[in-house]
């Protein structure tokens, strides 16, 4: 499942990331790596961007970038 498609109130784990995408490469250097747990905290009023937390990090990212991250439900 893509990170851009997940619902709130669930715990997910990253399985695959497309590191060609600059934003994804950036997320990786912030510690969002395959195996990392991630949670969706908020969606902006117009649906995009979304806010996620991982490892004490609270980051906002756009859906187009989130689509490059594959996750699985825990």
């Amino acid at each position, binding site marked *: 499942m893509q990170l851009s498609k997940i619902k709130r109130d669930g715990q997910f784990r990253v399985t695959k990331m497309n590191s060609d995408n600059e934003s994804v490469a950036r997320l990786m250097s912030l510690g969002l790596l395959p195996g990392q747990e991630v949670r969706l905290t908020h969606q902006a009023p117009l649906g995009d961007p979304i806010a996620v937390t991982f490892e*004490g990090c609270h*980051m906002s990212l756009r859906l187009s970038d989130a689509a490059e991250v594959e996750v699985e439900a825990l």
Partner: protein
Amino acid sequence: MRKDADILRIALIGNPNTGKSSLFNALTGLKQRVGNYSGVTVEKKTGEWNLGDGNAIELIDLPGTYSLSAKSIDERIAVDVLCGHAEGQPAPDLVVVVVDVENLQRNLFLASQAAELNVPMVIALNCWDVAERKGLKIDCKLLEQRLGVPVVPTVANRRRGVDELRTAVLGALKTRPVMIRPSWPDAVKESLGLLRSAFIEKNGENLKDGELTRLLFDQKSAVISRLKTPKPDAEAIVKSAREHLRKGGYNPDAAESLLRFRFLNPLLLDIIERQAILKQRSRSEGIDQLLLHRFWGLCVFVGMMYVVFQSVYTWAGPFMDLIEGVTGWFQGLAAGALESTPTLQSLVVDGIIGGVGAFVVFLPQILILFLFIALLEETGYMARAAFLMDKLFQWCGLNGKSFVPLLSSYACAIPGIMATRTISDPKTRMITILIAPLMSCSARLPVYLLLIGAFVEPLYGPAVAGATLFAMHFVGALVAAPLAYLLNQTLNKGRPAQPFIMELPHYRVPRIGSIFWRIYESGKDFVVRAGTVIFAMTIIIWALLYFPRPADVPFEVARENGVEITESSTSKEAVMQQFSREIDAAYLEQSYMGRFGQLAQPIFDPAGYDWKITVGVLASFPAREVIISTLGITYALGGEVDEESKDLRDTFKSATWESGPREGEPVYNLAVALSIMVFFALCMQCGATVAVIARELNWSWALASFFGLTGIAWVAAVAVYQITIRII
């Protein structure tokens, strides 16, 4: 290389929102802006840090970055400074890495990258108090042992830990400890070897091992642009090394993050002890439950933005009136004192005092807006505001951070453009600056009111007049949106959207000291950098409107009015007094600006303007609302008319073309009125804005935006005139 061997240099690096700027202030005492929002530290800041043993040290505050991957300008600067390739300065003697205790792992990623550059290091564990309050315990001794560099707990904004840091730095300057580095797998080592032999051994490049690591791991590394090797060759070398890495089983884009965190994570085992549930963390999350809520969050946002807008638009009013009153009082005083020397009187009254007033009058709006911006940033709300609004701006290449500057520009573009400093992406910031002058600022309102009152209301009634006024406020925004889109396409060449990853930092209680500092700094910066330019512009425009002032003008005006006087006439003074307004009008007509306006009139002829309107348009360059007093003077009503003036409205209605094909026809009609309003909605007739753009970007962009926007305004004005004149 080194000019002054006695001066030691220490660089300060750290992630955004770690309190790095606070630490910089605490160490140097030379106060700087304190950021709570990513990317405020754009400039290189240096200060003097007194180490207490007679050593004065230059402390360099590097831009806050999450990594040294050298993709953005900020990161590139950080790498260059740390490697000794910036401005002919050698590499710093030591680097202090500011680390947020709460995000140890992510922050040490940056430290680990910096270690690769072989600079001695001390780590400052900042926000120690917050961590303690949250029940987070860190074993500093153990961490120090494992990393191999001194680790000092600090609370920068309370100046705690400063002495301990000083001691650690003094020790480290002698022992030169370097943080432990990962031992790379063979594939990485071989790839680095390929780069080393090609760049250093074959091409004789001056590259450190750390820079080779950057070239290998970063897609489109900015380090390439610094090399002697021609870019295509360098890119080919890097590509083959990355290919080698890929063959060895590592994706070059992901390898560094994977390997570095794999190296760091075991080092952090048993270091962090969480004693209690993280209460503070949930408090920040709790606030976000409301402020980022899809409905209520938006309500709060609209409310807050209303307050911000009102404050700049309305609350600044009394202060601006006061400044105008004081300016007027000084002008009256000077006018009285210098009555015997009319030229000097006009220079002092209209040029000098008017010129000072011209930029001081912006200060209330700037100071008030920056109070709110400082509050929004210090609390951490600014990132949330950008989060809520981002979608609106995505399609034209901007992002949510453009919202506050553009909203502020509806009150006045000056503080709005200054507020773009909160936008970390340089291209987004540039586009926002370039479209900000199109937002309908309050200086346009008098022009709208005057013309709508004179030409729309009498014809169509107050309802249509109100609707017209409302619509005028959107003309600029309608042009701004496609313009932003076009600028994004041309400035960004092929890059559809900017990476927009933004941290939503924990909410914090703002520190009054740093808020006042930021307000003071923005005000000072405006007065020193832009104020002087606005002052100079006002003097130049004054001179163009005043000179050459032919001596026989009063006599000619008197003659035209049927009174014959000469230089020696006893009634001269009385006659000049009687016809003072007509004489002023004649002087303006004869002035350089007046002559230029008559010369330039054909340019504005397709928009329906006669030479008087043209002079008004040109003379209003210092500020848009000046057109009203200029028109007042040209129509011999004096310069004190305002948008409510009945005389001016009546004069408009009776004004006729003096010559040319339309001689005798009325100058003003609905088409001309709309054409003038549209011109003023879009043009860049604001010297202060040009000066501020020059300050924030450069003079080329300031001039480009002046001619660009004024050109767009001309096209739109001509179109509106030509269409309307055919309909009515």
